[in-house]
């Protein structure tokens, strides 16, 4: 044993960083769970509901009602969740009473990651052995093309959560390379189940825009509706077939509603693009925004309504012309320390 000769008080001071993140004992977590369950029953009593059938959503609603908070950050508001969601899962002590660790790769440091690599490599060797057996018996290996389009590998963070261990980028890329190598071999059903643990389905993001069919009103005239927005203006347009080119906005004719030529040009642009200026009637309602914003909103609404009258190729042309895209530009906020959104205060040299 070492004999202490001389130390300073600085050595005796507790090294806060060396002990790592706070470790929660099992007893502590059990106590927290008991307190949570008691609190849940009290809350149910307070709200006048049945304590037995009080779900997590009810708890969230009750807390939002009893402790209203105007804070923007949802994580900063008062919340009451089960302790397993709040306290992150931690590794318990890895060795038994006699000191022998439980896992055979404990002394590597990253035991779960390396045991995963070990298992995957074993599957690879099995697949190669199976392939050798088939070639020895002169049987061709079955090649079933798996549908790889809708799948993606687990991300590094998801893998870290699965293994409860920190990984580095190199480790993660190595593991993905091993899995890809395993896929390239003509492996059978044995390995597919194992690989599916590390696959995730990507939901198809292609949203086919559904063009509504034409509707017919009492007189037998075909019409269709469309909605459009621009800045703060909201507009709905109803386009009738077999018309003369009359356009009414909020019950007022466009010549009176939009005195400026530019706004009327914006309204007529979709019809001009499709060469249908004198063929359609339009009745629209618009609210909010300013002069130009209302014009833009009605333009978008009428273009959306015209999609039902027109072929698919012309719809594609309209989309490429930008008639069907919502204009995302809105007023930028003013920042403190500046005169406006971009304009800074006058800079004086001295």
């Amino acid at each position, binding site marked *: 044993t070492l004999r202490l000769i001389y130390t300073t008080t600085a050595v005796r001071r507790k090294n806060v960083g060396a002990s790592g993140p706070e470790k929660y004992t099992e007893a502590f977590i059990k106590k927290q769970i008991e307190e949570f369950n008691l609190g849940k029953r009290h809350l149910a009593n307070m709200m006048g509901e049945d304590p037995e059938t009080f779900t997590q959503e009810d708890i969230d609603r009750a807390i939002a009602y009893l402790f209203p908070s105007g804070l923007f950050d949802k994580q900063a508001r008062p919340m009451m969740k089960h302790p397993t969601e709040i306290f992150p899962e931690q590794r318990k002590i890895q060795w038994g009473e*006699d*000191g022998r660790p439980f896992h055979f790769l404990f002394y590597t440091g990253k035991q779960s990651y390396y045991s995963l690599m070990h298992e995957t490599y074993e599957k690879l060797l099995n697949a190669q052995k199976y392939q050798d057996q088939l070639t020895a018996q002169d049987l061709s290996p079955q090649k079933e093309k798996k549908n790889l389009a809708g799948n993606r590998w687990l991300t590094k963070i998801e893998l870290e959560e699965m293994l409860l261990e920190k990984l580095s980028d190199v480790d993660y890329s190595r593991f993905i390379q091993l899995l890809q190598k395993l896929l390239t071999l003509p492996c059978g059903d044995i390995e597919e189940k194992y690989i599916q643990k590390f696959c995730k389905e990507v939901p198809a993001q292609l949203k086919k825009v559904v063009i509504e069919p034409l509707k017919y009103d009492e007189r037998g005239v075909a019409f269709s509706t469309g909605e459009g927005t621009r800045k703060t203006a909201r507009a709905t347009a109803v386009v009738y077939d077999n018309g003369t080119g009359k356009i009414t906005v909020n019950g007022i004719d466009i010549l009176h509603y939009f005195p400026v030529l530019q706004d009327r040009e914006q309204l007529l642009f979709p019809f001009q693009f499709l060469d249908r200026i004198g063929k359609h009637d339009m009745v629209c309602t618009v609210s909010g925004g300013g002069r130009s914003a209302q014009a833009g909103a009605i333009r978008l609404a009428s273009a959306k309504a015209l999609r039902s009258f027109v072929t698919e190729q012309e719809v594609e042309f309209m989309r490429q012309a930008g008639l069907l895209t919502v204009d995302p530009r809105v007023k930028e906020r003013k920042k403190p320390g500046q005169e406006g959104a971009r304009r800074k205060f006058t800079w004086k040299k001295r």
Partner: protein
Amino acid sequence: DGNLLSKPLSHPDFFNVKELFSLKDLFDARVHLGHKKGCRHRFMEPYIFGCRLDQDIIDLDQTMQHLQLALNFTAHIAYRKGIILFISRKRQFCHLVERTARECGEYAHTRYWQGGLLTNAHIQFGPGVRLPDLIIFLSSLNNVFEPHVAIRDAAKMNIPTVGVVDTNCNPCLITYPIPGNDDSPTAMELYCKLFRMTIIRAKDKRRQSEIFNELQ
């Protein structure tokens, strides 16, 4: 119980490890083949039998003696329930070594060695870790052909080592070196088989002696 631990120490070969291998087995597994003359390490010269067409041949008689001492030592450690750690940085045999360790019920480390695993164990693993009582090197060099850091660390932490040293390795800090080939698959499989059989034999003997003592 004093009998339990002192009885094996009275015999020179309590676990009869000599019968596990013979000179012919070592020769068939190509244990005698070393590297070329240019790769020869100065301290391996006593263990080399000769040089044929520039390739060093290891003296199998000396290998037999060293192997017997090493296996006897591992058997004693396993009998006294010590922790054994297998180390090999050869990528070819990493799976084999890990499999051997798992079958024995002991531990293996065939991956990148993080600096403070032995010397900084209390901080890396947690307070109260038990360090290995024996480290077996199935290849004592790492991937850059330098002596493995664990040899030096084990010497620092007073942990005895058993190691297979090839003609380009440094046998200095290893307590029970075994001069022999560490590159052929047959040689590695032979070593794994021998270590596995000794450890299992020693553990079985321990269990039998404990049952025997309880019955008395």
